């Protein structure tokens, strides 16, 4: 690429993807949000407050850690982990919720709503709402409420109301539907903090911009530590916010390869997976055009993944674009492989990753041995695994 990458256009389009596909009642709110985001993005006072919060409240910059023992064992490229698991609340999600909550405050919205899958975004939203004294309602699929009970309790402690969603497949997509229904009903006083790089304009670009600190830091840290850019980036992709956060500052560095890792569940060939970029097709859901898992009638297909955070039938529109132009490659990892990644990192480096991030770890385990020892892979360790102890123990038949 010779031109500087500058997606999306003013209507939120990444090529044919993205856009504004919402019911009419949401249009004024989305326009208001877009205006506020465009204004404050350039406001030095806003940026200063955001930076200070990221430093003192979240604990940024997060370290870039050279996983030497694991790299040696794999016998190929050097693996560096971007430690988003060390952020306050234990995942990358807070980078975005801090930014959107500061916007909500400036826009005078006293009530915050959010959807959540694994509960990480819900916790990160409840956290910033508590800190700013905002009312907070989190929608979560009933299936996810059951498998992520610890995070549900955390949100309640933080003062949020957690609403279990019983419609459809009772997972992340249904939580998003319900949050949209809430927003359309309470449009005047409510700010909807979407947790990923999906949704109508300006969400995909706005969430990306708040998450891009991951890649900006990683780039500088890699240069400082090794004197060069990495050869490859690896990150898991559900909606795709941690991946786009890592990828975006590297898009114009054509020599840096990018791998987005989708959840293959039982295996893409079984149909029981959450890998729209690998095995889906373009369509429209939740306000944007992107790759989706849909049947021939356009009905959304139920997804499967061991990780609640990747259990989503769509993906951020910018990933769809990066796939089509060949700038990023999208691969997939099964539940079983993800578990291997989970155990490998835990035993080799003493770091317990989230099941979502374990998909990225598992792909790094495949990729590293195919590369030279002087090459570098940065893997986004997007969250820590504490929330998944219950799921892991249950899988191994252990009562805790």
């Amino acid at each position: 690429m010779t031109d500087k990458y500058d997606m999306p256009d003013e209507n939120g389009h990444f090529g044919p993807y993205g856009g504004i596909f919402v019911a009419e009642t949401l249009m004024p709110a989305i326009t208001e949000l877009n205006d506020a985001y465009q204004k404050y993005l350039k406001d030095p006072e806003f940026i200063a407050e955001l930076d200070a919060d990221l430093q003192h409240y979240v604990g940024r910059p997060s370290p870039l850690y050279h996983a030497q023992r694991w790299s040696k064992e794999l016998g190929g490229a050097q693996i560096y982990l971007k430690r988003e698991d060390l952020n306050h609340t234990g995942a990358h999600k807070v980078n975005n919720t801090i930014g959107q909550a500061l916007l909500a405050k400036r826009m005078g919205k006293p009530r915050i709503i959010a959807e959540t899958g694994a509960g990480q975004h819900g916790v990160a939203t409840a956290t910033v709402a508590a800190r700013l004294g905002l009312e907070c309602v989190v929608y979560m699929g009933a299936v996810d409420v059951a498998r992520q009970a610890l995070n549900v309790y955390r949100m309640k402690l933080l003062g949020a109301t957690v609403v279990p969603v019983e419609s459809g497949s009772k997972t992340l997509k249904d939580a998003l539907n319900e949050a949209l229904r809430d927003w359309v009903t309470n449009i005047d006083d409510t700010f909807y903090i979407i947790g990923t790089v999906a949704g109508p304009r300006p969400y995909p670009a706005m969430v990306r911009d708040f998450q891009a600190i991951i890649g900006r830091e990683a780039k500088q840290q890699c240069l400082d530590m090794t004197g060069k850019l990495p050869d490859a980036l690896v990150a898991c992709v559900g909606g795709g916010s941690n991946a786009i956060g890592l990828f975006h500052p590297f898009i114009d560095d054509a020599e840096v390869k990018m791998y987005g890792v989708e959840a293959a569940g039982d295996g893409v060939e079984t149909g029981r997976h959450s890998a729209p970029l690998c095995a889906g097709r373009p369509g429209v859901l939740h306000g944007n055009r992107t790759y989706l898992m849909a049947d021939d009638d356009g009905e959304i297909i139920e997804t499967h993944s061991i990780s609640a955070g990747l259990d989503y039938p769509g993906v951020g529109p910018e990933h769809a674009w990066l796939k089509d132009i060949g700038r990023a490659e999208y691969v997939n990892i099964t539940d079983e492989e993800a578990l291997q990644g989970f155990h490998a990192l835990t035993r080799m480096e003493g770091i317990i990753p989230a099941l979502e991030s374990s998909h990225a770890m598992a792909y790094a385990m495949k990729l590293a041995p195919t590369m030279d020892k002087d090459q570098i892979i940065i893997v986004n360790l997007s969250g820590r695994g504490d929330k998944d102890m219950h799921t892991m123990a249950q899988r191994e038949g252990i009562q805790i």
Partner: protein
Amino acid sequence: MSRLADCFQALQESGRKALIPFITAGDPFPEFTVPMLHEMVKAGADVIELGVPFSDPMADGPVIQRASERALEHQVGLRKVLSMVAEFRKTDQKTPLVLMGYLNPIEIMGYQEFANAIQRVDVDGVLTVDLPPEEAHDCVALLKERDIDQIFLLAPNSDAERVKKMDAAGSGYLYYVSLKGVTGAGHLDTDDVEEKLAMIKQNTCLPVGVGFGVKNAETAKTLSKIADGVVVGSALISKIEANLNDPQQAKQEIIELLSSMRQAMDESN
């Protein structure tokens, strides 16, 4: 001229307002739908809105969500809905029929194939909840070539500029969503609707139908004094839901509700 334009013109000439019932195709089972459509016409419906079931109906309340779920249990998707329209048209070539639903089924079928297919079965209009005029250009162009109307929604927070945009992009009629919320929510405030409709009418020549929150004959009557059409959906589907073991009873109650609305609306004019 499209069938919708003819219909609204004829209504205007006779001083009547359009009664526009909505049901979800395939709810509670596929064989229920076409006979129900004919009965609704007999009970006084001027235009029919037929819901295309969708797995993720983001703008709908629980009643229409469950209608979609029941229909999808019988695998009623867009193609099956089109075959129902073809069946309906065998004996009714007069009543305008509008497909209402979400964009993804149309996207997956492809705009060109969709436009051809609905022309073939003789659909008159398409109302796509998550397709604002900003994104509708390609779809509208294909429909326009075939004399099929794209119907757009207006919301309580739509301003005059927005109404003008809908007026330019849409045809057939405009659908005013009477409250901020999902289908079937609360009760609408008729004073508020009246004020809003005055502004809307200043900015469009298209007929304006009002829906969301229309539950009984009394509301239909009030609205028919200020709007060109009254849309009733969740209240009808509630009858289906209350009589899942007795579809004949459901049909009877829907006919009664529509007839009472028709009568009340005609009295007021």
